């Protein structure tokens, strides 16, 4: 039921990026997403009460979702540098979804992680954290946009 208005070309773009590199370099690409994840803005730093914990991740990860007046979704993540895989997942989701409309975010396929070709490199168990992060983002968007 993906309406054309809700399509998000970034998803295919990111999946294409991962597909384009040989398997051996895919983790390196994930690391780049980890490195690019920005720090929390001041209003969230040191305020764990404002963030939602994604308990399904192997390492604690916290996220916040905002929907601005124009309906744009903004994502904020907090994950330690010692957990680059979890940070990398957050970086991908931010690159894929930040700034889009609520409808576009909600139209993201729940199994988007399967398109990244990381299953055998990262393991299905670790990828569950990615899916959980996406599900929690969508739930927050639904709550904020309604």
């Amino acid at each position, binding site marked *: 039921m993906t309406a054309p208005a809700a399509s998000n070309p970034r998803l295919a773009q990111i999946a294409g990026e991962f597909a384009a590199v040989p398997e051996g370099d895919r983790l390196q690409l994930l690391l780049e997403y980890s490195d690019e994840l920005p720090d929390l803005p001041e209003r969230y730093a040191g305020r764990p009460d404002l963030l939602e914990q994604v*308990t399904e991740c192997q390492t604690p990860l916290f996220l916040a979702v905002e929907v601005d007046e124009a309906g744009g979704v903004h994502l904020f993540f907090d994950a330690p540098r010692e957990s*680059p*895989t979890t940070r990398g997942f957050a970086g991908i989701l931010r690159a894929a979804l930040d700034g889009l409309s609520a409808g576009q975010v909600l139209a993201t396929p729940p199994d988007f992680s399967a398109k990244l070709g990381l299953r055998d490199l990262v393991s299905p*168990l*670790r990828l569950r954290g990615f899916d959980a992060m996406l599900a929690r983002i969508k739930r927050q968007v639904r709550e904020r946009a309604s």
Partner: protein
Amino acid sequence: MTLPPDPDPKFAEYARPEMLVSTRWLADHLGEPGLVVAESDEDVLLYETGHIPGAVKLDWHTELNDPVTRDYVDGAGFARLMSAKGISRDTTLVLYGDKNNWWAAYALWVCTLFGHPDARLLDGGRAKWIAEGRPLVTERPAAAAADYPVVERDDTRARAFRDQVLGHLGRPLVDVRSPGEYTGELLHMPDYPQEGALRGGHIPGAVNIPWARAAAEDGTFRPRAELEAIYREEAGLEPDDDVIVYCRIGERSSHTWFVLAHLLGYARVRNYDGSWTEWGNSVGVPIRRGESP
């Protein structure tokens, strides 16, 4: 043994001092022929962010496990893996990793199933190496393939299976999970993903000694006297006991297995790697909830 043991006096107290090396020993021996250093982490990308110069990566999910059967790789698979990492049968293998060497101990335990003659842990692991300001690099070593023979896995000495645990009830068992998992309040580690156990609690008779109690603040193993206080005095385990340790999938309990078998010298210690993800899903096996063993 290819490389000399670390003469660090702290290790001399342990039953098998040669199973540990210090960060200083490793720094002094890096690059020597016959030594391979391998990093084994919980996070599959941590190695890529920087590792000990020359270290190879060994991942538990993607390399030590068989991709289809719930089991470890077989003799041929292990030989292929070791060869690709530049490890031969007479290599001194030093393992280290994140989280108090949790996964490094697990990798060492798997190496034990194949009887690798000389595998050691870096005391304090990755965190201590970094805390001491020692170098990390991101370049992967160009490991030249080595010859590793096909050695069949020996599951009889260091590994226990579910039916063996059933037959062991009444004898010493150590549950190394968090207290919440042990009592049955939690079905998974605090802050970790649910890994699918239908029932909560512990195996009847198991004492609860969370694995990380064996580690000091800096991630090194506690001195022998402190370990004796925990495992002998508190848990009541005697060195000639037949002990089985378990956790959720056998990784945290590998750390305790290492402590009991190598640091305290217990003669018979087995790791039940099926652990709670098997026991808590098995039909008809006895389970106890609450705080008492």
